[in-house]
């Protein structure tokens, strides 16, 4: 697992380096290879962030679908914010609900929490084992199962495929 972890970190850091530099001359590439090899070997020797990422074609395909769904939700959430902020009566009905997630992988849970934070009317307040506590600006379901269906499942079905 360790080799896979360091490998993925290396690829991400190397891409990051090339984007930062913006040129592809030989010295830039050689320096980038050295730097982006040293840093994961030093810091990611034991960490397991990328360990359960799946590298199958299906996972890549689902990543693209996920990005698309996420972008759509992002735009929708901002229209929602606009509507709430501009209307003079402030139509809010806030509350903290509890939802359930099946994801085990740490990276997937991070992405899920970030996605919930950026989508319409919700943000992650706390995360404890398999439950997430979500602050919802307009509570529609107080029940755990129903709220899970509303908030989590549209992301979870893609993340389940990408990460184990």
């Amino acid at each position: 697992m360790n080799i896979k972890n360091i490998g993925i970190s290396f690829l991400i850091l190397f891409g990051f380096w090339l984007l930062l530099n913006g040129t592809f001359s030989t010295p830039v590439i050689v320096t980038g290879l050295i730097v982006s090899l040293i840093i994961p070997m030093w810091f990611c020797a034991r960490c397991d962030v990328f360990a359960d990422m799946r590298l199958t074609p299906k996972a890549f395909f689902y990543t693209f679908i996920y990005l698309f769904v996420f972008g759509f939700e992002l735009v929708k959430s901002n229209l929602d914010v606009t509507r709430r902020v501009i209307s003079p009566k402030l139509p809010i009905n806030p509350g903290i609900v509890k939802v359930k997630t099946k994801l085990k992988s740490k990276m997937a849970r991070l992405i899920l929490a970030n996605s919930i934070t950026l989508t319409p009317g919700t943000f992650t307040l706390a995360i404890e084992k398999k439950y997430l506590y979500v602050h919802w600006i307009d509570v529609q379901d107080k029940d755990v199962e129903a709220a899970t269906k509303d908030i989590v499942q549209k992301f979870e079905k893609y993340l389940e495929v990408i990460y184990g």
Partner: protein
Amino acid sequence: MLRNSLILLVLLGFAAAVFPLVHSYEAKDTLTGVAEHYANYGKEEVGAANLVSAVVVTYRGFDTLGEVTILFLASAVIGLFLKVSETHTKDSRSVFFKSTEILVTASRLLVPMIMLLGAYIFINGHLTPGGGFQGGAVIASAFALLLLSRPQKQFSHKLISVIESISGITFVFIGLLGILLAGGFLDNHIFAMGKFGTLLSAGAIPIIYILIGLKVGSELTGIVRNLKESQKVG
């Protein structure tokens, strides 16, 4: 009340002393004096695209040496002070709480990236804004993020001081090499100058900036680490 009005008087005196400086300020149209020389000949003499780096590392290299020394002294004095105050570390209870899982994962993802950003800033110090000091500060921020997200984590003081000493010694050694091989202390012509505006140019400036970056980074990390160690209830 008397005291406050006295202070106000002092302040007014100070303002009156500095006011002519602001008031008689004349906007300039071109550079004059030494700045004009740096601007016109810096490209040939030093070969660094970033003229501020040229001034910091080569034209005024001694200032930089003094600055690194001052920072080293400050770091050492802070370490000494905080060490003496930890008289009973044995029975002191650690009160660090676990961070939220999201922060731990995010720090695992972001710390290598911030490290790479710091490395980019000091490796490209002669081409883009930034240099050793900024890169070192960014690396120290990465370590600070590591300490904030996982307060229980210990990292060795020895490694920090070894990196700091080695880079400091090499910095002075390269400076002395300048006397032997080129025009003077910290002269950057000891390596080939390369093509202007590429990564391998400006002679020794990239090497000196990498050394300064490592040294400043380890000094600031040492300060942050010492302060974090002092948070124990003792």
